[in-house]
């Protein structure tokens, strides 16, 4: 699949995503500069993590207005695949491609650690490589990952099945003590109504290779690419 990784000033996970798609999964990948107004012929576009525009104003708010974003929205409207990771999640929220908003973490600290996530549905391109209820371990690294929306909007989100991932304990239980950042309803990842746009705060690209000691994130990419659950070329980039 032709894949694109958007690069904003301040993106810092773009190379990691490129590496996973290219070296681990053998896809055709290119970088898409934020000043470009086209996603070219990419069928999958990843909006990666980092600190686009230094997180000025609000995380993701400036990047959401950059020239590439209408093209990303266009791809989403055509049914193409769009994945947001961490700052990419914030950007997709700010651009209105996904519902909700991010606030500072509950404890006001930057959190950098592994967390557990529960897969809420597996009929999405980005979750079809997992089982429903499967517990994944993934690193988070963010200061603004506290997902909020109005209660009414959250009810609609849940009813439409748009919660893709929830923070949980190792055993899959959801509670305040396993919610790292105070996100409402422990939401770690959401999708749009059609399921072709998905975003999460944890970093699947940082746990998608044997070399890294954790491959829980690999099936997220492999699933979206229509590949089998088994790593196609595990360790190929090592």
């Amino acid at each position, binding site marked *: 699949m032709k894949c694109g990784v958007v690069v904003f000033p301040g993106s810092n996970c773009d190379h990691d995503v490129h590496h996973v798609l290219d070296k681990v999964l053998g896809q055709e990948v290119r970088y898409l500069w934020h000043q470009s107004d086209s996603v070219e012929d990419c069928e999958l576009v990843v909006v990666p993590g980092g600190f686009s525009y230094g997180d000025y*104003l609000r995380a993701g*708010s400036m990047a959401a*207005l950059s020239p590439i974003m209408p093209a990303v929205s266009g791809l989403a409207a055509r049914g193409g695949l769009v994945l947001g990771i961490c700052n990419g999640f914030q950007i997709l929220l700010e651009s209105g491609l996904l519902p909700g*908003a991010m*606030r*500072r973490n509950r*404890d006001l600290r930057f959190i950098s650690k592994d967390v557990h996530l529960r897969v809420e549905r597996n009929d999405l391109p980005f979750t079809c490589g997992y089982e429903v209820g499967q517990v994944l371990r993934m690193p988070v690294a963010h200061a603004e990952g*506290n997902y909020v*929306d109005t209660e009414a909007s959250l009810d609609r989100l849940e009813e439409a099945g748009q919660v893709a991932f929830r923070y949980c304990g190792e055993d899959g239980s959801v509670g305040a003590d396993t919610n790292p950042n*105070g996100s409402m309803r422990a939401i770690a990842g959401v999708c749009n109504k059609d399921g072709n746009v998905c975003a999460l705060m944890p970093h699947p690209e940082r746990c998608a290779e044997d070399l890294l000691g954790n491959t829980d994130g690999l099936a997220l990419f492999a699933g979206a690419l229509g590949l089998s659950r088994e790593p196609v070329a595990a360790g190929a980039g090592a």
Partner: protein
Amino acid sequence: MFPRPQILDPQGKAISEALARVGYDEVRSVRAGKTFDIEIEAADRAAAETRLAEVCDKLLANTIVEDFSFELEESS
């Protein structure tokens, strides 16, 4: 720009707790927001208000979690 009343404001809460710790326990609550000084050219006051509201809505505030208000001062 201020967090909407129903939105948890961890920053404001931390500031309010800090104030109580140093003796200002009469402080009931703190909401932490942002202020911007903006110079804008417009034909008249109404036009400036319209454009400023757009600016706030489009970029400066995320209206899911923040409310905004502005005051206009005319300069020559």
